[in-house]
């Protein structure tokens, strides 16, 4: 069972930046795992539900967030926030059930729930005492 868990870990860890489109920011994420699912939180301030795209392509999960466009009509006094969109991709393992992946966007935070398929979950074997 320990082996299986490690496999899931290895596959969700790579955030491939090489394939990122030009000029994007990599959002920070928190990734948790328990027996039922892998949960991911990503900080995407300035992105609304309509400007968010989550794509699954075989074993690659891609998150693209477009910022609410900056108001260019004012004059900037001080700028720290980069005017760039967000992009990050991950590799997900076969134990994730693609059909049941859910995404929710709240106050600039994306919560992705990646449930594991039933057959990949560790099963308790009942021991009957005769």
């Amino acid at each position, binding site marked *: 069972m320990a082996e299986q868990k490690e496999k899931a870990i290895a596959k969700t860890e790579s955030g491939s930046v090489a394939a990122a489109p030009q000029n994007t920011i990599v959002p920070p*994420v928190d990734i*948790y795992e328990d027996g039922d699912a892998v949960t991911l*939180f990503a*900080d995407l*301030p*300035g992105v609304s539900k309509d400007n968010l795209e989550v794509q699954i392509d075989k074993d690659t999960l891609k998150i693209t967030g477009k910022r609410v466009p900056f108001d260019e009509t004012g004059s900037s006094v001080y700028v*720290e926030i980069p005017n760039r969109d967000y992009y990050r991709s991950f590799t997900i393992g076969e134990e994730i059930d693609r059909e049941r992946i859910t995404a929710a966007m709240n106050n600039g*935070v994306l919560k992705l729930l990646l449930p594991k398929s039933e057959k990949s979950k560790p099963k308790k074997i009942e021991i009957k005492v005769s």
Partner: protein
Amino acid sequence: MAITLWRDRRGGPRGLLDNLKSEMDHWFDDYFSRGDDLTKSEGFFNDSNLANYPAVDIMEKDGKYIVHAELPGMKKDDIHVEYKDGYVTIKGEKKFEHEEKKKDFHRLERSYGSFSRTFELPAEIKEEGIKAEYKNGVLELSLPMKDPAKSTSKKIKID
């Protein structure tokens, strides 16, 4: 200089890895066993160094200062904005959402804990007209100037 074999008391590089692993385990245990002190970020998320103060943009438009602060995942009530004597302070605390100790972490990149950021605006502000809005994880402040004609931004002519 002669090269000597690296050995720690457990013997060899393997011992070093075990040591690191047990240290990490202890660290995680400590962090999570704090009960409701979870929100007090001491130790790893040592926010007294303000590594996670919000990124801020200040813009001048139509006789107002518009301030944007990136604060994703906050509850509106946990953000406090103060204006005093020309200084604007944005502060609050981002609470750790997951108190479940059963889950394993693969990555913990987002920042948590208390933050506070104070800055001074170039012109005097009409305090009654200050507005604040929190949308899509961005706090937007609108601070009207007392005397918009005295706006500090000048257009510089290029000869």
